[in-house]
């Protein structure tokens, strides 16, 4: 899953080092336009439904936080 996630992230924002960044939201690195695209692609790719309630800084501050979010939503779907 991580590989696909990293591919999507670097496709949306090739200028960001997603391996090391841990404050993507807090430091305004990811902007709201990026979030919209990211969420729609994550939903399609992983067959999940990210809703506005999941849009917290904690869930999107780093690639690993996003990975956990996707995993937990996939579990919910099951």
């Amino acid at each position, binding site marked *: 899953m991580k590989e696909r996630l990293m591919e999507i992230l670097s496709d949306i924002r090739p200028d960001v080092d997603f391996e090391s960044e841990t404050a993507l939201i807090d430091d*305004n690195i990811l*902007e709201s*336009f990026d*979030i*919209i695209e990211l969420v*729609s692609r994550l939903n399609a790719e992983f067959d999940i439904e*990210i809703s*506005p309630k999941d*849009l917290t800084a904690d869930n999107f501050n780093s690639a690993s936080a996003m990975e956990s979010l996707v995993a937990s939503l996939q579990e919910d779907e099951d």
Partner: protein
Amino acid sequence: MMDASEFMNCMARWWEQLSYTSWMYFALFLPLVMIIYQACRGRGRRIVLLLSGWFFFASLSGFLLAVNVLTSLFVYFLGRKLEAISLDKSLKKKERKKKKKLCLFWGVVILLSVIVGFKYLDFIGLNIVRITQAVGIAYDWKMLDLIAPAGISYYTLEAIAYLSDVYWEKIKAEDSVLNMFLFMSFFAKLIVGPISRYPECEKLFEGQSIRLIDVEEGYQRILWGLFKKLVIADQLAPGVNSLYSGDYMDGGVALLAAVMFTIQEYMDFSGAIDIAIGSARVFGVRLHENFRQPFFAKNASDFWRRWHITLGRFFRDYIFYPISFAPSVTKLAGGVSKKIGRKIGRFVTPAIALFFVWISNGLWHGARWTYVFYGMYYFVLILIENILEEPFAKLLAKLKLRETSPAVRIFRYVKLFFIVIIGEMFFRADTLGKGFEMFKKIFTDLRFDMVIKHIQDIGIDRYGYFAAVTGIIVVSVVETLKEAGIPVRKKIEAIPLPVRFAFWYCCIFAVILFGAYGAGYDVEDLVYAQF
């Protein structure tokens, strides 16, 4: 001895003067609340803060207090209801969601109806008259001339955010009605915000003892706010009023008016926010910042992440994202993307959501076409900016220029300067027609010979200019240092005690000497208190 009627008159006068910038507020009201608060314990402290907020409200209008109390009760019970549905395991997940959605929908509709009733009915009525006249139908609208309760635009948004968060189960519904009353009427954020989230105010409910460090830092922040408001904004206010209401207008004068208003508005609003944040800090409550050096922004989107931050984050979290993820919008965007390709198609969803954000932003400021235009102006600019971002980055790469190179930065600052100035020009204009007239003059009648004459003749004397310009320089230096990551207040803290005291005394004297206080001056109403 003062007799009873004199005493009552005196009290009534004081009441009328209770605003954030009056001596009454920070030299009497706030210290008195602090003393009584500290003398009480536990629940008593919350009651003191609540009664202080209600007293503040009542000093503005008893009716306003009634609206606030009823709204608080409504939000409290609706929050409890939403939570009860979430916990009702006898319902299926889908049923729960449906019931909750209905509950939230009607809650938001009712909250918005109150605000629409007070602020927008005349506007709607008058525009219906215009339309009916245009199509030849006789219809008349009798003006209601309702005065919107102060603070209603702020606490209504706080209430909507609270209910949405309970709906999404991000927070638990408040079970103490006292806490809900306090959240909705805390005097520090009553008039101009910052628009706060429920968890940010939880410190309020703890009733912790007042700490000296909080009082010191809180009052320093209040002093800084007074400096911006009284030494800069209020000194410029008569000039701005005179320029906007004057008969003469050329391009240079239009630019002067817009620049002066932008400075006045920033100093007025951010100064009031400093006083609000400082007042809350005294009680150990840290309200969210509302400004972060906005004039250092790299573009319009970035500007709005630094200017009126709490309004921007409200629109982002409760309008932009929910609309972006609405099934009908994603379906529409998906369909369009398939037809025109992902490159442009990816902007469809944000464009739809952004439109609703900016029409709401415009209308939030009030029922005027100038505000609607202001919202649409930023909608178009921010959308274009996002679409052009990639081509612009490619162009820079071709020219072998980096984002951080001085030429690019200067280009961005100049561009932002004009974007903000033009936006504020329309925002302050009495009518949309006047705004367009000013805008047109910049291109058709740009001359500067009359600017000097106007500077000398708009009701600001040399003393006022000296105070305002010195103030602007001081604020600019502080903001530049903050942007560079230098914590100015902490640096001042590190200075030896006598020098530090001398510094703060100088600030107090600057406010007294150069502030638009005393005989011959009227403290201007806070610009953002009217929204």
